[in-house]
């Protein structure tokens, strides 16, 4: 982990508020593992005060790619940054999705939850076949589709709630059949909380090893402030930043 000055190489608006950033950040690029994130600070502003946690979409030294949605002041300001502008990049942070060599892994991505799973597929997809489900409310929430199509995947299943692309329905609608047909050893998920809660319920009877990557508002990103706590199934709190962001699905207290 380091705090380095990153230089924006490319900044693209992909539509519907989704943004793609390519940043020269040699340390993060060299050391990032799938599942990890960086804390991004727009220099030298004190408003917004805090950095923004953003998952790493891809890393090829000296570059990292970040894919995010404009949701508030911080991300709006970030989306205004242009090539040549610099950003403080603190990372890579957090734990990772384990490679699980030789096992059949099903990646389940909802909307911008594609980020850590894309990274996983980029890092390990060449070595063995992977399965992926990619869903969202509509085509507009799947701005990375072209890039996902270029990943090396054994099977790719696409869903949208409005039917604008792929099969019509929620990710969870198609999941049971896929689990029965494809028999994965493990599932890795990332997406909106409601989607993850539905998946947790659905995956329970299956023997898969289920890991999930969570999003949270963070103060520091490295375990000092305890601001990103989430409730675990045993009633204690976990820090998303340094105990996660990847957790066993059954360890989380999902809303009912």
């Amino acid at each position, binding site marked *: 982990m380091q705090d380095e000055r990153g230089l924006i190489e490319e900044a693209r608006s992909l539509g519907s508020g989704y943004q793609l950033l390519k940043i020269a950040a040699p340390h993060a690029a060299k050391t990032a593992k799938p599942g990890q994130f960086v804390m991004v600070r727009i220099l030298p502003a*004190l408003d917004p005060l805090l950095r923004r946690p953003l998952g790493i979409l891809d890393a090829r030294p000296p570059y990292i790619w970040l894919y995010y949605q404009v949701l508030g002041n911080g991300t709006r300001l970030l989306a205004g940054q242009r090539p040549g502008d610099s950003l403080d990049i603190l990372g890579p942070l957090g734990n990772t999705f384990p490679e699980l060599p030789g096992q059949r892994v099903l990646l389940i991505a909802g909307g911008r939850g594609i980020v850590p799973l894309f990274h996983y597929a980029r890092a390990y997809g060449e070595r063995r076949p992977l399965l992926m489900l990619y869903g969202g409310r509509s085509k507009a929430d799947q701005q990375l589709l072209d890039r996902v199509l270029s990943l090396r995947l054994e099977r790719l299943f696409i869903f949208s709630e409005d039917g604008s692309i792929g099969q019509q329905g929620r990710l969870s609608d198609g999941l049971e059949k896929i689990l029965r047909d494809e028999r994965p050893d493990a599932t890795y998920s990332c997406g909106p909380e409601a989607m993850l809660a539905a998946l947790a319920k659905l995956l329970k009877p299956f023997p898969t090893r289920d890991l999930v990557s969570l999003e949270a508002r*963070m103060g520091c990103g*490295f375990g000092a402030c305890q601001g990103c706590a989430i409730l675990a199934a045993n009633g204690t709190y976990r820090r998303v930043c340094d105990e996660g962001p990847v957790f066993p699905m059954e360890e989380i207290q999902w809303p009912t």
Partner: protein
Amino acid sequence: MADLSADLGFRTLKNPVIAASGTFGYGEEFLPFYDLDVLGAIVMKGIFREERPGNPPPRLHETPAGLLNSIGLAGPGSAALQEIIRRLHARTPVPIIVNVCGGDDDEFVEVAALFSGMDEVAMLELNISCPNVKKGGACPAQDAGHTSRLVKRVKERIRKPLIVKLSPNAADIVGVAQAAQDAGADALSLVNTFLGLAVDLEARRPVFANVYAGLSGPAVKPLALRLVREVCLKAYVPVIGIGGIASGRDALDYILVGASAVQVGTVNFYDPAGAARIVTEIEAEMERLKIRDLSEIRGKLQA
């Protein structure tokens, strides 16, 4: 070369920059960023006797140049912190200050006595001012009588210097400060966070389960600076200024109104090496302003 040493009377720190409680974890989290010994001292996150889970999420809410927090003093308990302190002290000679908490006066006294017995601990800070423990933000530092009784009891049981951390939410912070020093406080640190409120307009609910939360960050600096000045005008023990310090100049502002040292907090979250940077900036500012040592400007505000 400017002399940055900060004289607290009972102890001289190599410089006036102290990492503030609750913003510096237990020190170890910052070891990847810099050698902690460049700081004057560090204050551990507040500790109770037993492990505490802290408050339910959300725990943070950003405001313009500020941060509302309702962490609720989550922590591992005294025994676990003793282990952490031994481990940290073996890695760095930076003076370690333990921030002592309690759900009642007995617990404050017990926790203070426990850490007073540790050679690795330089001094204690009595956290009578956290607004996130009791609903509505109530804390001992809102009342001069309670502060006086508690400080006296703690002082009877400890051998280390005692800093008493004051609340900006007291109706009369100067009165509480006087009560604390008369009861035997060796130094005063102020201010803890300002009680604030954030609401969710759509849901028509408060953002935090505890309703109120503590505001910190650059937004509070002018408010805190005024309170520190008022206390410094009446204090006969050293004062440690706290509130929104983000640069060396901010730190020197507190010295100018009479503080002997400062604590830096929220900056540690968005700039992990920020406290070390502030030390360097203080030195550069002193060179630029031709200040040889801090006593030249301490309390020299001409108003």
